[in-house]
């Protein structure tokens, strides 16, 4: 199955800029479908970016984040060629993870 | 009645008149019957049909027709008749729009 995570990490001097686009419905649990029934909540609860075994970015999400979330952030201490590990867990216990090389 | 009172009275009367005119529908002074509703609905539906032929129905007309039928279903013929009359007014306005726009659209055209 194709990964739900698209990521691009670029090193610029000692700062690495990371962009990620994650495919996920992020249903809040407040929206009704065409038949008038509530679409059950289904959203990412935790998103983690790790480098060298250390967490460089941790997001605790809830119902307010929209579908297919896009994240962008920078961090220091990584080099070109290093690996970045991205993983998420949602409220149903589903997970996905991927690694990307810093360019 | 002295002058002050009669001018006050006429002011009140004017305000009441204005209030009645403000409501976009003229409500009958007596309670509307099912027949009143059916007549009003028929007029509204006929106008909406013409709007449909002109490919120019308004969503608000449809909403009022729906509200009229719903109120009638609940036995509230006052509300049902009022909604039906509103629907007719909206439908007629949409017909006016479609008809006048046949020429008026050229005012907007970039030449």
């Amino acid at each position, binding site marked *: 199955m194709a990964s739900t995570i698209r990521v691009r990490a670029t090193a610029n001097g000692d700062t690495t800029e990371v962009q990620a686009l994650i495919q996920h419905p992020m249903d809040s649990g407040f929206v009704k479908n065409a038949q008038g029934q509530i679409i059950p909540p289904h959203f990412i609860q935790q998103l983690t970016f790790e480098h060298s075994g250390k967490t460089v970015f941790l997001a605790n999400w809830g119902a307010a984040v929209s579908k297919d979330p896009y994240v962008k952030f920078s961090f220091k201490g990584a080099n070109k060629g290093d690996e970045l590990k991205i993983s998420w867990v949602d409220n149903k216990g589903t997970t996905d993870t991927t690694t990307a090389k810093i360019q | 009645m002295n002058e002050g009172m009669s001018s006050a009275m006429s002011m009140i009367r004017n305000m009441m008149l204005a209030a009645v005119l*403000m409501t976009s529908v003229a409500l009958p002074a007596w309670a509307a019957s099912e027949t009143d509703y059916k007549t009003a609905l028929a007029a509204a539906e006929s106008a909406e049909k013409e709007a449909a032929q002109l490919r120019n129905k308004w969503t608000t007309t449809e909403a009022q027709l729906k509200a009229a039928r719903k109120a009638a279903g609940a036995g509230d013929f006052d509300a049902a008749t009022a909604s039906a009359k509103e629907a007719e007014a909206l439908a007629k306005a949409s017909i006016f729009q479609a008809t006048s726009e046949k020429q008026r659209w050229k005012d907007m055209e970039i030449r």
Partner: protein
Amino acid sequence: MRLQTILRTSLPLAFAALSAAALACVAASAIAAPDKVDPMADGKAFRKYFTDKFPKVKLEEFVNGPYSMNEGLRKQWEEKEQFPPYEFALEAGKEMFSTPFKNGKTYADCFPNGGIGIRQNYPYFDEKEGKVVTLELALNRCREANGEAPYSYVKDEMASLTAYMAFTSRGKPMDIKIPNDPRALEAYENGKRYFYTRRGQLNFSCATCHVQSPGEHIRAEVLAPALGILNAMPIYRSEWASMGTISRRFTSCNSQTRAVPLEPQSDEYRDVEYFLSYVANGLPIAGPGARP
């Protein structure tokens, strides 16, 4: 009562429209004969109107809609284009396009050049049928001709497919032809008339927003110019949190003015797509696009 309200609100707009039209007339320094259909002259006047109104915007930039009108929005969009929200639909569309039908044939069999790099030729006037044929219509006809059920015109699979086809044409100039056929001219004129006609209880025409007020705000949205407005379709709209086709935008614009939308791919919609695409001839295809 309602009628008076409409006339009262439409009067200032009508005056604005008249003065805009008057200005356009003066700028074009020509009094157009109102009953002669001249698409080439229309296209020229259309382009001139927008380039005069926005002298700092390059002609090819108009296809970026609100981003050509607002610097702040543009910066956000340029950043997002590094990781565009339509990416998932684009990938899905590519896969769908190359997946054979149950009978073994593919979309490539229905289209010139295998369906690659042809989006800029749509819509076209089909002289056999005597009507305008859009890309969405052609795709569904391809499906039905091969024993497959048609897709909804408004989103999902149709949006993914047209996203992929648009992507293969990115950068190519819009190239709509009007054959020397009175029916084609009539379809073009129909589309033009639809574009400028006021509709809905709010009494807006397409021109009210996209000719009179591009770059201005309607509630929180920045309005796109009409020039090249279809070049970036289909689009991922943040408002929809999904992709939408030209059909989706036409029907939703209608309901937003409180007009009951027509059926997707109705004659009027096909014709207005024909008109809008034609006057954007020469401007690049920018689809699939992303919008707020």
